[in-house]
Protein backbone atom coordinates (compact mmCIF):
# COMPACT_ATOMS: atom_id res chain seq x y z
CA UNK A 1 0.00 0.00 0.00
CA UNK A 2 1.12 3.52 -0.79
CA UNK A 3 0.59 6.33 1.73
CA UNK A 4 0.30 9.93 0.57
CA UNK A 5 1.19 12.71 3.00
CA UNK A 6 0.45 16.32 2.02
CA UNK A 7 2.80 18.70 3.85
CA UNK A 8 2.56 22.46 4.14
CA UNK A 9 5.34 25.00 4.50
CA UNK A 10 4.41 27.45 7.26
CA UNK A 11 6.08 30.01 9.53
CA UNK A 12 8.17 28.14 12.10
CA UNK A 13 6.21 27.71 15.32
CA UNK A 14 8.99 29.44 17.30
CA UNK A 15 8.71 32.65 15.29
CA UNK A 16 6.78 35.57 16.67
CA UNK A 17 4.40 36.41 13.85
CA UNK A 18 4.15 40.07 12.81
CA UNK A 19 1.42 41.75 10.82
CA UNK A 20 2.57 43.63 7.72
CA UNK A 21 2.56 47.41 8.00
CA UNK A 22 -0.16 47.71 5.30
CA UNK A 23 -2.39 45.13 7.09
CA UNK A 24 -2.54 42.96 3.96
CA UNK A 25 -1.24 39.87 5.73
CA UNK A 26 1.59 38.65 7.94
CA UNK A 27 5.26 39.36 7.33
CA UNK A 28 6.96 36.47 5.52
CA UNK A 29 10.14 38.19 4.32
CA UNK A 30 13.23 36.82 6.10
CA UNK A 31 11.08 34.71 8.38
CA UNK A 32 12.11 31.16 9.30
CA UNK A 33 9.79 28.63 7.68
CA UNK A 34 9.30 24.97 8.55
CA UNK A 35 7.02 22.00 7.97
CA UNK A 36 3.61 22.38 9.61
CA UNK A 37 4.03 20.47 12.94
CA UNK A 38 0.83 18.45 12.41
CA UNK A 39 2.15 17.36 9.02
CA UNK A 40 5.35 16.14 10.69
CA UNK A 41 3.12 13.91 12.80
CA UNK A 42 1.44 12.67 9.61
CA UNK A 43 4.82 11.87 8.02
CA UNK A 44 5.90 10.07 11.19
CA UNK A 45 2.74 7.94 11.21
CA UNK A 46 3.24 7.00 7.56
CA UNK A 47 6.86 6.03 8.26
CA UNK A 48 5.85 3.93 11.24
CA UNK A 49 3.24 2.17 9.11
CA UNK A 50 5.89 1.41 6.51
CA UNK A 51 8.38 0.21 9.12
CA UNK A 52 5.79 -2.17 10.58
CA UNK A 53 5.14 -3.61 7.14
CA UNK A 54 1.73 -1.98 6.71
CA UNK A 55 2.81 0.22 3.78
CA UNK A 56 5.43 -0.06 1.09
CA UNK A 57 5.84 3.53 -0.07
CA UNK A 58 5.52 6.95 1.55
CA UNK A 59 5.03 9.88 -0.83
CA UNK A 60 5.06 13.48 0.41
CA UNK A 61 3.42 16.25 -1.59
CA UNK A 62 3.61 20.00 -1.08
CA UNK A 63 1.89 22.86 -2.87
CA UNK A 64 3.55 26.27 -3.13
CA UNK A 65 6.56 28.18 -4.47
CA UNK A 66 9.95 26.63 -5.21
CA UNK A 67 11.04 26.96 -1.55
CA UNK A 68 8.51 24.24 -0.74
CA UNK A 69 11.04 21.81 -2.14
CA UNK A 70 13.02 22.37 1.07
CA UNK A 71 10.00 21.20 3.05
CA UNK A 72 9.74 18.15 0.80
CA UNK A 73 13.44 17.40 1.33
CA UNK A 74 12.83 17.56 5.07
CA UNK A 75 10.14 14.90 4.63
CA UNK A 76 12.53 12.82 2.54
CA UNK A 77 15.25 13.27 5.17
CA UNK A 78 12.82 11.94 7.78
CA UNK A 79 12.51 8.84 5.62
CA UNK A 80 9.78 9.36 2.99
CA UNK A 81 10.54 7.66 -0.34
CA UNK A 82 9.47 10.20 -2.89
CA UNK A 83 8.31 13.80 -3.20
CA UNK A 84 5.90 15.68 -5.41
CA UNK A 85 6.02 19.44 -5.67
CA UNK A 86 3.02 21.24 -7.10
CA UNK A 87 4.29 24.62 -8.17
CA UNK A 88 1.98 27.42 -7.21
CA UNK A 89 2.94 31.00 -6.73
CA UNK A 90 0.48 32.25 -4.19
CA UNK A 91 -1.49 31.26 -1.11
CA UNK A 92 -4.04 28.73 -2.21
CA UNK A 93 -7.30 28.28 -0.33
CA UNK A 94 -8.17 24.92 1.29
CA UNK A 95 -10.74 23.98 -1.36
CA UNK A 96 -8.23 24.50 -4.19
CA UNK A 97 -5.64 22.53 -2.22
CA UNK A 98 -8.13 19.69 -1.76
CA UNK A 99 -8.91 19.72 -5.50
CA UNK A 100 -5.21 19.59 -6.39
CA UNK A 101 -4.66 16.77 -3.92
CA UNK A 102 -7.60 14.90 -5.41
CA UNK A 103 -5.82 14.97 -8.78
CA UNK A 104 -2.63 13.68 -7.14
CA UNK A 105 -4.60 10.89 -5.45
CA UNK A 106 -6.11 9.93 -8.83
CA UNK A 107 -2.63 9.71 -10.34
CA UNK A 108 -0.90 8.03 -7.41
CA UNK A 109 -3.67 5.79 -6.17
CA UNK A 110 -2.64 5.62 -2.48
CA UNK A 111 -4.49 3.41 0.01
CA UNK A 112 -4.35 6.07 2.68
CA UNK A 113 -3.83 9.81 3.00
CA UNK A 114 -2.38 11.07 6.30
CA UNK A 115 -2.66 14.82 6.71
CA UNK A 116 -2.29 17.25 9.61
CA UNK A 117 -5.59 18.20 11.20
CA UNK A 118 -4.81 21.83 10.42
CA UNK A 119 -1.96 24.14 9.46
CA UNK A 120 -0.67 26.43 12.18
CA UNK A 121 -0.65 29.48 9.90
CA UNK A 122 -4.32 29.91 8.90
CA UNK A 123 -5.76 27.24 11.25
CA UNK A 124 -8.47 26.46 8.66
CA UNK A 125 -8.89 22.78 9.51
CA UNK A 126 -10.65 22.06 6.21
CA UNK A 127 -8.32 20.44 3.70
CA UNK A 128 -8.51 16.83 4.90
CA UNK A 129 -12.29 16.87 5.19
CA UNK A 130 -12.74 18.53 1.78
CA UNK A 131 -10.37 16.04 0.16
CA UNK A 132 -12.28 13.06 1.61
CA UNK A 133 -15.56 14.55 0.38
CA UNK A 134 -14.23 15.22 -3.14
CA UNK A 135 -12.88 11.66 -3.34
CA UNK A 136 -15.96 10.13 -1.77
CA UNK A 137 -13.64 8.40 0.73
CA UNK A 138 -14.12 7.69 4.41
CA UNK A 139 -12.50 10.16 6.80
CA UNK A 140 -11.15 9.99 10.31
CA UNK A 141 -10.44 13.40 11.79
CA UNK A 142 -8.47 14.62 14.87
CA UNK A 143 -6.95 11.17 15.12
CA UNK A 144 -4.79 10.37 18.14
CA UNK A 145 -4.57 6.62 17.59
CA UNK A 146 -4.91 4.33 14.60
CA UNK A 147 -4.87 0.61 13.91
CA UNK A 148 -5.18 -0.90 10.47
CA UNK A 149 -6.28 -4.43 9.67
CA UNK A 150 -7.12 -5.39 6.12
CA UNK A 151 -9.35 -2.80 4.49
CA UNK A 152 -10.55 -1.41 7.81
CA UNK A 153 -8.95 1.14 10.08
CA UNK A 154 -9.90 1.83 13.68
CA UNK A 155 -9.21 5.41 14.66
CA UNK A 156 -9.36 7.11 18.01
CA UNK A 157 -10.64 10.67 17.96
CA UNK A 158 -10.27 13.25 20.67
CA UNK A 159 -13.72 14.68 21.26
CA UNK A 160 -15.14 16.86 24.02
CA UNK A 161 -15.39 14.72 27.11
CA UNK A 162 -13.43 11.69 25.95
CA UNK A 163 -12.18 9.47 23.18
CA UNK A 164 -14.29 8.17 20.35
CA UNK A 165 -13.37 4.90 18.61
CA UNK A 166 -14.49 4.67 15.00
CA UNK A 167 -14.08 1.99 12.36
CA UNK A 168 -13.61 3.37 8.85
CA UNK A 169 -13.14 1.56 5.57
CA UNK A 170 -10.15 2.15 3.36
CA UNK A 171 -9.10 3.95 1.29
CA UNK A 172 -9.47 6.83 3.69
CA UNK A 173 -8.27 10.29 4.59
CA UNK A 174 -6.99 10.53 8.16
CA UNK A 175 -6.28 13.92 9.73
CA UNK A 176 -3.85 13.60 12.62
CA UNK A 177 -3.82 15.27 16.02
CA UNK A 178 -1.01 16.27 18.35
CA UNK A 179 -0.94 13.20 20.57
CA UNK A 180 -0.76 10.58 17.80
CA UNK A 181 3.03 10.31 17.96
CA UNK A 182 6.25 12.22 18.49
CA UNK A 183 7.84 12.89 15.10
CA UNK A 184 11.44 11.85 14.59
CA UNK A 185 14.33 14.09 13.60
CA UNK A 186 15.81 13.72 10.16
CA UNK A 187 18.64 11.21 10.39
CA UNK A 188 22.09 11.93 8.97
CA UNK A 189 22.01 8.91 6.58
CA UNK A 190 18.57 9.99 5.33
CA UNK A 191 19.73 13.60 4.92
CA UNK A 192 22.55 12.34 2.72
CA UNK A 193 20.12 10.18 0.74
CA UNK A 194 17.38 12.83 0.45
CA UNK A 195 18.93 14.55 -2.54
CA UNK A 196 18.99 11.30 -4.50
CA UNK A 197 15.33 10.52 -3.86
CA UNK A 198 12.94 11.41 -6.68
CA UNK A 199 11.20 14.77 -6.48
CA UNK A 200 8.78 15.51 -9.32
CA UNK A 201 7.38 18.92 -10.07
CA UNK A 202 3.92 19.40 -11.52
CA UNK A 203 2.25 22.70 -12.35
CA UNK A 204 -1.25 23.64 -11.30
CA UNK A 205 -2.17 23.96 -15.00
CA UNK A 206 -1.08 20.38 -15.69
CA UNK A 207 -3.50 19.20 -13.03
CA UNK A 208 -6.25 21.30 -14.60
CA UNK A 209 -7.52 22.79 -11.38
CA UNK A 210 -8.96 26.29 -11.04
CA UNK A 211 -7.18 27.70 -8.00
CA UNK A 212 -8.40 31.27 -8.20
CA UNK A 213 -9.33 32.56 -4.76
CA UNK A 214 -12.94 32.52 -3.63
CA UNK A 215 -12.24 34.65 -0.57
CA UNK A 216 -11.03 38.24 -0.28
CA UNK A 217 -8.86 39.26 2.65
CA UNK A 218 -9.99 42.68 3.74
CA UNK A 219 -7.62 43.31 6.60
CA UNK A 220 -5.23 41.47 8.92
CA UNK A 221 -4.74 42.92 12.37
CA UNK A 222 -2.84 42.06 15.54
CA UNK A 223 -5.15 40.80 18.26
CA UNK A 224 -5.72 43.50 20.84
CA UNK A 225 -3.19 43.37 23.66
CA UNK A 226 -4.71 41.93 26.80
CA UNK A 227 -5.04 44.43 29.58
CA UNK A 228 -3.73 43.50 33.01
CA UNK A 229 -6.03 41.63 35.40
CA UNK A 230 -6.97 42.69 38.92
CA UNK A 231 -6.78 41.02 42.30
CA UNK A 232 -9.92 40.64 44.35
CA UNK A 233 -9.91 40.56 48.13
CA UNK A 234 -12.36 37.71 48.66
CA UNK A 235 -14.97 35.44 47.12
CA UNK A 236 -17.86 37.82 47.65
CA UNK A 237 -16.06 40.59 45.77
CA UNK A 238 -15.33 38.12 42.97
CA UNK A 239 -18.97 37.01 42.72
CA UNK A 240 -20.10 40.62 42.83
CA UNK A 241 -17.76 41.61 39.98
CA UNK A 242 -18.70 38.60 37.86
CA UNK A 243 -22.37 39.41 38.33
CA UNK A 244 -22.41 43.17 38.01
CA UNK A 245 -19.32 44.16 35.97
CA UNK A 246 -18.52 41.20 33.72
CA UNK A 247 -22.17 40.16 33.73
CA UNK A 248 -21.25 36.51 33.14
CA UNK A 249 -23.20 34.95 36.02
Amino acid at each position, binding site marked *: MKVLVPIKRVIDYNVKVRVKADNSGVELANVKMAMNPFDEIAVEQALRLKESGGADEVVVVSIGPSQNQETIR*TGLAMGADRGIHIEASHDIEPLAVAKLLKEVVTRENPGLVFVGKQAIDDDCNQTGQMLAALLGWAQGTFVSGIEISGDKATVIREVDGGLEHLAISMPAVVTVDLRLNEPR*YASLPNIMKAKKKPLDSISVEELGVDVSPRLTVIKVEEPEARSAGIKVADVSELVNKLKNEAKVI
Partner: protein
Amino acid sequence: MQFGLSEEQELIVSTVRSFVETEIYPLEDEVEKLGHVPTEMGQAIKQKVIDMGFYASNFPDHVGGGGLNNLEFALLERELGRGSMALTHFFGRPQNILMACKDEQIEKYLTPAVKGERMDALAMTEPGAGSDVRGMNTTAKRAGGDWILNGTKHFISGGDHADFFIVFVATGVDDTPHGPKKRITCFLVDRGHPGFEVLPGYNSVSHAGYHNVILKFEECRLPDAQVLGEVDGGFEVMNTWLYATRITVATMCVGRARRAFDYALTYAAERKQFGKQIGKFQGVSFKLADMITEIDAADWLTLASAWRLDQGLPANREIASAKLYASEMLARVTDEAIQVYGGMGLMDDLPLARFWRDARVERIWDGTSEIQRHIISRDLLRPLGG
Protein backbone atom coordinates in the same frame (compact mmCIF):
# COMPACT_ATOMS: atom_id res chain seq x y z
CA MET B 1 32.97 31.72 -5.28
CA GLN B 2 29.86 30.17 -3.79
CA PHE B 3 28.59 31.22 -0.37
CA GLY B 4 25.42 29.14 -0.19
CA LEU B 5 24.96 25.80 1.52
CA SER B 6 23.91 22.63 -0.29
CA GLU B 7 20.51 21.13 0.52
CA GLU B 8 22.18 18.46 2.65
CA GLN B 9 24.10 21.11 4.57
CA GLU B 10 20.93 23.14 5.11
CA LEU B 11 19.23 20.02 6.47
CA ILE B 12 22.16 19.24 8.78
CA VAL B 13 21.99 22.78 10.16
CA SER B 14 18.21 22.81 10.62
CA THR B 15 18.13 19.33 12.16
CA VAL B 16 20.91 19.97 14.68
CA ARG B 17 19.49 23.39 15.47
CA SER B 18 16.09 21.97 16.19
CA PHE B 19 17.61 19.13 18.25
CA VAL B 20 19.49 21.64 20.40
CA GLU B 21 16.44 23.87 20.84
CA THR B 22 14.11 20.98 21.67
CA GLU B 23 16.31 18.51 23.56
CA ILE B 24 19.10 20.62 25.10
CA TYR B 25 17.71 24.07 26.00
CA PRO B 26 15.04 22.71 28.38
CA LEU B 27 17.66 20.81 30.44
CA GLU B 28 20.16 23.64 30.76
CA ASP B 29 18.86 25.27 33.93
CA GLU B 30 18.77 21.95 35.76
CA VAL B 31 22.36 21.11 34.77
CA GLU B 32 23.47 24.59 35.74
CA LYS B 33 21.92 24.15 39.21
CA LEU B 34 23.10 20.56 39.72
CA GLY B 35 26.60 21.30 38.47
CA HIS B 36 26.73 18.00 36.59
CA VAL B 37 24.85 15.97 34.00
CA PRO B 38 23.09 13.00 35.62
CA THR B 39 24.12 9.73 33.94
CA GLU B 40 20.61 8.89 32.70
CA MET B 41 20.23 12.36 31.18
CA GLY B 42 23.50 12.03 29.28
CA GLN B 43 22.64 8.51 28.15
CA ALA B 44 19.21 9.60 26.90
CA ILE B 45 20.74 12.34 24.74
CA LYS B 46 23.38 9.93 23.46
CA GLN B 47 20.78 7.32 22.49
CA LYS B 48 18.73 9.87 20.54
CA VAL B 49 21.82 11.02 18.67
CA ILE B 50 22.79 7.42 17.88
CA ASP B 51 19.25 6.76 16.57
CA MET B 52 19.55 9.84 14.34
CA GLY B 53 22.81 8.55 12.89
CA PHE B 54 24.55 11.73 14.05
CA TYR B 55 26.88 10.13 16.60
CA ALA B 56 30.55 10.39 15.56
CA SER B 57 29.52 12.35 12.48
CA ASN B 58 33.12 13.61 12.27
CA PHE B 59 34.40 10.10 11.47
CA PRO B 60 34.51 8.65 7.95
CA ASP B 61 31.78 6.28 6.72
CA HIS B 62 34.12 3.31 6.45
CA VAL B 63 34.67 3.19 10.21
CA GLY B 64 30.97 3.70 10.93
CA GLY B 65 30.98 7.49 11.29
CA GLY B 66 28.78 10.09 9.63
CA GLY B 67 31.30 11.02 6.95
CA LEU B 68 31.06 14.81 7.28
CA ASN B 69 33.87 16.94 5.91
CA ASN B 70 35.44 19.73 7.97
CA LEU B 71 33.06 22.39 6.68
CA GLU B 72 29.94 20.32 7.35
CA PHE B 73 31.24 19.38 10.76
CA ALA B 74 31.90 23.05 11.53
CA LEU B 75 28.27 23.83 10.61
CA LEU B 76 27.07 21.09 12.93
CA GLU B 77 29.31 22.27 15.77
CA ARG B 78 28.13 25.84 15.27
CA GLU B 79 24.55 24.81 16.02
CA LEU B 80 25.67 22.66 18.96
CA GLY B 81 27.57 25.69 20.26
CA ARG B 82 24.22 27.30 21.06
CA GLY B 83 23.57 24.75 23.78
CA SER B 84 25.23 23.89 27.09
CA MET B 85 28.57 22.16 26.53
CA ALA B 86 27.97 19.83 29.44
CA LEU B 87 24.93 18.47 27.57
CA THR B 88 26.12 18.67 23.97
CA HIS B 89 29.13 16.59 25.07
CA PHE B 90 26.75 13.63 24.70
CA PHE B 91 26.04 14.53 21.07
CA GLY B 92 29.18 12.42 20.64
CA ARG B 93 32.11 13.67 18.58
CA PRO B 94 35.00 11.43 19.65
CA GLN B 95 38.53 12.75 19.08
CA ASN B 96 39.52 12.34 15.42
CA ILE B 97 42.93 11.23 16.60
CA LEU B 98 41.41 7.77 17.17
CA MET B 99 41.70 7.32 13.40
CA ALA B 100 45.36 6.57 14.18
CA CYS B 101 44.24 3.31 15.88
CA LYS B 102 45.64 0.13 14.37
CA ASP B 103 45.37 -3.64 14.90
CA GLU B 104 43.40 -4.55 18.03
CA GLN B 105 43.16 -0.85 18.98
CA ILE B 106 40.45 -0.59 16.32
CA GLU B 107 38.17 -3.10 18.06
CA LYS B 108 39.03 -1.86 21.52
CA TYR B 109 38.93 1.92 21.07
CA LEU B 110 37.98 3.24 17.64
CA THR B 111 34.87 1.16 16.96
CA PRO B 112 33.31 1.44 20.44
CA ALA B 113 34.02 5.20 20.44
CA VAL B 114 32.28 5.65 17.10
CA LYS B 115 29.34 3.52 18.24
CA GLY B 116 28.96 5.50 21.46
CA GLU B 117 29.82 2.52 23.67
CA ARG B 118 32.99 4.06 25.12
CA MET B 119 33.79 7.75 25.61
CA ASP B 120 37.24 9.28 25.30
CA ALA B 121 39.12 12.27 26.72
CA LEU B 122 42.39 13.80 25.60
CA ALA B 123 45.25 14.67 27.97
CA MET B 124 48.20 16.91 27.15
CA THR B 125 48.19 19.67 29.74
CA GLU B 126 50.04 19.36 33.04
CA PRO B 127 50.36 21.65 36.04
CA GLY B 128 53.84 22.60 34.79
CA ALA B 129 53.16 22.45 31.06
CA GLY B 130 50.28 24.34 29.42
CA SER B 131 51.08 26.39 26.32
CA ASP B 132 54.50 24.81 26.36
CA VAL B 133 53.21 21.32 25.58
CA ARG B 134 56.66 19.92 24.95
CA GLY B 135 57.68 20.94 28.43
CA MET B 136 55.64 18.07 29.87
CA ASN B 137 57.03 16.11 32.81
CA THR B 138 54.91 12.98 32.68
CA THR B 139 57.24 10.27 31.44
CA ALA B 140 57.12 6.73 30.11
CA LYS B 141 60.27 4.67 30.60
CA ARG B 142 61.09 1.28 29.15
CA ALA B 143 60.89 -1.66 31.56
CA GLY B 144 61.31 -5.02 29.91
CA GLY B 145 59.12 -4.86 26.83
CA ASP B 146 56.63 -2.50 28.54
CA TRP B 147 56.39 1.15 29.51
CA ILE B 148 56.16 2.59 33.02
CA LEU B 149 54.29 5.91 33.27
CA ASN B 150 54.71 8.49 36.03
CA GLY B 151 53.35 11.99 36.32
CA THR B 152 50.23 14.19 36.49
CA LYS B 153 47.89 15.70 33.90
CA HIS B 154 45.28 18.34 34.74
CA PHE B 155 42.38 20.27 33.17
CA ILE B 156 41.26 17.15 31.26
CA SER B 157 37.80 17.89 29.86
CA GLY B 158 35.05 15.31 29.88
CA GLY B 159 37.23 13.08 32.03
CA ASP B 160 34.38 12.31 34.42
CA HIS B 161 32.47 10.48 31.66
CA ALA B 162 35.49 9.02 29.85
CA ASP B 163 36.07 5.27 29.66
CA PHE B 164 39.58 5.75 28.29
CA PHE B 165 42.14 8.53 27.86
CA ILE B 166 44.41 9.55 25.01
CA VAL B 167 47.53 10.65 26.90
CA PHE B 168 50.70 12.36 25.68
CA VAL B 169 53.89 11.70 27.66
CA ALA B 170 57.62 12.28 27.28
CA THR B 171 59.57 9.21 26.18
CA GLY B 172 63.02 10.73 25.95
CA VAL B 173 65.09 13.85 25.26
CA ASP B 174 67.13 14.76 22.18
CA ASP B 175 70.01 17.20 22.28
CA THR B 176 69.52 19.71 19.49
CA PRO B 177 71.39 22.91 18.50
CA HIS B 178 68.49 24.78 20.20
CA GLY B 179 68.96 22.81 23.43
CA PRO B 180 67.30 19.66 24.77
CA LYS B 181 64.00 18.69 23.09
CA LYS B 182 61.61 16.11 24.51
CA ARG B 183 60.35 13.19 22.45
CA ILE B 184 56.63 12.65 22.91
CA THR B 185 54.56 9.45 22.61
CA CYS B 186 50.78 9.06 22.70
CA PHE B 187 49.21 6.25 24.81
CA LEU B 188 45.69 4.86 25.18
CA VAL B 189 44.91 4.30 28.87
CA ASP B 190 41.78 2.62 30.23
CA ARG B 191 40.02 3.98 33.27
CA GLY B 192 40.72 1.61 36.14
CA HIS B 193 44.09 0.47 34.82
CA PRO B 194 46.47 -0.28 37.74
CA GLY B 195 48.70 2.68 38.59
CA PHE B 196 46.32 5.11 36.89
CA GLU B 197 43.90 7.26 38.84
CA VAL B 198 41.22 9.75 37.72
CA LEU B 199 40.74 12.47 40.36
CA PRO B 200 38.15 15.26 40.48
CA GLY B 201 39.41 18.47 38.89
CA TYR B 202 38.85 22.14 39.72
CA ASN B 203 35.60 24.07 39.64
CA SER B 204 35.61 26.31 36.60
CA VAL B 205 33.74 29.60 36.14
CA SER B 206 32.89 28.49 32.59
CA HIS B 207 30.63 25.64 31.44
CA ALA B 208 29.19 24.39 34.71
CA GLY B 209 28.60 20.66 34.49
CA TYR B 210 31.33 20.16 31.90
CA HIS B 211 34.02 18.86 34.20
CA ASN B 212 37.77 18.67 33.96
CA VAL B 213 39.71 16.01 35.87
CA ILE B 214 43.23 15.31 37.11
CA LEU B 215 45.05 12.17 35.98
CA LYS B 216 47.71 10.56 38.18
CA PHE B 217 50.17 7.96 36.91
CA GLU B 218 52.20 6.06 39.49
CA GLU B 219 54.34 3.23 38.16
CA CYS B 220 51.58 2.60 35.62
CA ARG B 221 52.65 -0.29 33.35
CA LEU B 222 51.46 -0.33 29.72
CA PRO B 223 52.40 -2.63 26.85
CA ASP B 224 53.45 -1.40 23.38
CA ALA B 225 49.96 -2.24 22.14
CA GLN B 226 48.72 0.90 23.96
CA VAL B 227 50.88 3.26 21.88
CA LEU B 228 48.75 5.33 19.49
CA GLY B 229 50.79 6.10 16.38
CA GLU B 230 54.54 5.51 16.62
CA VAL B 231 56.83 5.49 19.63
CA ASP B 232 58.27 9.04 19.84
CA GLY B 233 55.73 10.00 17.16
CA GLY B 234 53.35 11.86 19.50
CA PHE B 235 53.84 15.21 17.81
CA GLU B 236 53.09 13.66 14.42
CA VAL B 237 49.71 12.25 15.53
CA MET B 238 49.00 15.51 17.35
CA ASN B 239 49.75 17.60 14.28
CA THR B 240 47.85 15.30 11.95
CA TRP B 241 44.67 14.98 13.99
CA LEU B 242 44.42 17.79 16.51
CA TYR B 243 44.91 20.56 14.03
CA ALA B 244 41.19 21.01 13.40
CA THR B 245 39.91 21.11 16.99
CA ARG B 246 40.44 24.88 17.07
CA ILE B 247 37.78 25.14 14.35
CA THR B 248 35.39 23.53 16.82
CA VAL B 249 36.13 26.19 19.44
CA ALA B 250 35.71 28.97 16.88
CA THR B 251 32.46 27.73 15.39
CA MET B 252 30.89 26.99 18.78
CA CYS B 253 31.69 30.58 19.77
CA VAL B 254 29.79 31.76 16.69
CA GLY B 255 26.74 29.64 17.57
CA ARG B 256 26.66 30.88 21.14
CA ALA B 257 27.19 34.49 20.08
CA ARG B 258 24.17 34.24 17.77
CA ARG B 259 22.05 32.91 20.59
CA ALA B 260 23.14 35.77 22.88
CA PHE B 261 22.57 38.24 20.07
CA ASP B 262 19.00 37.04 19.49
CA TYR B 263 18.22 37.83 23.12
CA ALA B 264 19.71 41.31 22.79
CA LEU B 265 17.90 42.04 19.52
CA THR B 266 14.50 40.96 20.83
CA TYR B 267 14.93 42.92 24.03
CA ALA B 268 16.04 46.08 22.20
CA ALA B 269 12.82 45.93 20.18
CA GLU B 270 10.60 45.32 23.23
CA ARG B 271 12.02 47.11 26.27
CA LYS B 272 10.78 50.68 26.64
CA GLN B 273 12.46 53.52 28.54
CA PHE B 274 11.81 57.25 28.21
CA GLY B 275 8.66 56.30 26.31
CA LYS B 276 10.52 54.53 23.49
CA GLN B 277 11.88 51.13 22.61
CA ILE B 278 15.52 51.17 23.75
CA GLY B 279 16.52 50.01 20.25
CA LYS B 280 15.49 53.50 19.09
CA PHE B 281 18.44 54.95 21.01
CA GLN B 282 21.59 54.92 18.95
CA GLY B 283 23.57 53.94 22.04
CA VAL B 284 21.77 50.60 21.90
CA SER B 285 21.14 50.14 18.17
CA PHE B 286 24.78 50.70 17.19
CA LYS B 287 25.80 48.02 19.67
CA LEU B 288 23.56 45.60 17.77
CA ALA B 289 25.11 46.67 14.47
CA ASP B 290 28.62 46.06 15.81
CA MET B 291 27.66 42.74 17.35
CA ILE B 292 26.16 41.24 14.21
CA THR B 293 29.03 42.51 12.08
CA GLU B 294 31.54 40.79 14.32
CA ILE B 295 29.49 37.58 14.51
CA ASP B 296 29.20 37.36 10.72
CA ALA B 297 32.89 38.09 10.31
CA ALA B 298 33.80 35.32 12.75
CA ASP B 299 31.36 32.94 11.07
CA TRP B 300 32.86 33.43 7.60
CA LEU B 301 36.43 33.37 8.86
CA THR B 302 35.75 30.05 10.57
CA LEU B 303 33.88 28.42 7.69
CA ALA B 304 36.55 29.58 5.25
CA SER B 305 39.29 27.99 7.38
CA ALA B 306 37.36 24.69 7.48
CA TRP B 307 36.84 24.91 3.72
CA ARG B 308 40.59 25.40 3.20
CA LEU B 309 41.27 22.29 5.22
CA ASP B 310 38.84 20.32 3.02
CA GLN B 311 40.56 21.63 -0.10
CA GLY B 312 43.95 20.53 1.19
CA LEU B 313 45.15 24.15 1.28
CA PRO B 314 47.44 25.47 4.04
CA ALA B 315 45.07 26.41 6.86
CA ASN B 316 47.09 26.70 10.06
CA ARG B 317 47.17 30.49 10.11
CA GLU B 318 43.54 30.79 9.02
CA ILE B 319 42.39 28.37 11.72
CA ALA B 320 44.42 30.31 14.31
CA SER B 321 42.80 33.57 13.14
CA ALA B 322 39.34 32.04 13.35
CA LYS B 323 39.92 30.65 16.85
CA LEU B 324 41.43 33.93 18.04
CA TYR B 325 38.81 36.22 16.53
CA ALA B 326 35.74 34.10 17.29
CA SER B 327 36.67 33.58 20.96
CA GLU B 328 37.42 37.29 21.47
CA MET B 329 34.26 38.24 19.56
CA LEU B 330 32.19 36.02 21.87
CA ALA B 331 33.58 37.81 24.92
CA ARG B 332 32.51 41.19 23.48
CA VAL B 333 29.12 40.01 22.24
CA THR B 334 28.12 38.31 25.49
CA ASP B 335 29.27 41.36 27.42
CA GLU B 336 27.29 43.77 25.24
CA ALA B 337 24.22 41.51 25.30
CA ILE B 338 24.19 41.97 29.07
CA GLN B 339 24.61 45.72 28.61
CA VAL B 340 21.55 45.83 26.34
CA TYR B 341 19.56 44.03 29.05
CA GLY B 342 20.76 46.19 31.90
CA GLY B 343 20.43 44.66 35.38
CA MET B 344 18.21 41.82 34.27
CA GLY B 345 21.07 40.54 32.10
CA LEU B 346 23.00 39.61 35.23
CA MET B 347 20.26 37.54 36.82
CA ASP B 348 20.06 33.76 36.79
CA ASP B 349 16.56 33.94 35.31
CA LEU B 350 18.14 34.51 31.90
CA PRO B 351 21.03 32.57 30.38
CA LEU B 352 22.99 35.73 29.47
CA ALA B 353 25.23 35.75 32.55
CA ARG B 354 25.98 32.09 31.86
CA PHE B 355 26.95 32.84 28.23
CA TRP B 356 29.25 35.56 29.53
CA ARG B 357 30.92 33.26 32.06
CA ASP B 358 31.17 30.43 29.53
CA ALA B 359 32.82 32.74 27.01
CA ARG B 360 35.83 33.27 29.25
CA VAL B 361 37.44 29.87 28.74
CA GLU B 362 37.29 30.06 24.96
CA ARG B 363 40.27 32.44 24.87
CA ILE B 364 42.30 29.98 26.94
CA TRP B 365 41.76 26.37 25.94
CA ASP B 366 42.96 24.82 22.72
CA GLY B 367 45.75 27.39 22.68
CA THR B 368 45.41 30.80 24.32
CA SER B 369 44.82 33.97 22.30
CA GLU B 370 48.50 34.78 22.76
CA ILE B 371 49.54 31.40 21.34
CA GLN B 372 47.20 31.86 18.34
CA ARG B 373 48.74 35.31 17.71
CA HIS B 374 52.14 33.68 17.95
CA ILE B 375 51.13 31.07 15.33
CA ILE B 376 49.71 33.73 13.01
CA SER B 377 52.67 36.08 13.23
CA ARG B 378 55.22 33.26 12.92
CA ASP B 379 53.46 32.09 9.78
CA LEU B 380 53.74 35.61 8.33
CA LEU B 381 57.29 36.40 9.40
CA ARG B 382 59.09 33.11 8.98
CA PRO B 383 59.20 33.22 5.17
CA LEU B 384 60.83 36.66 5.53
CA GLY B 385 63.45 35.27 7.86
CA GLY B 386 61.78 36.97 10.86
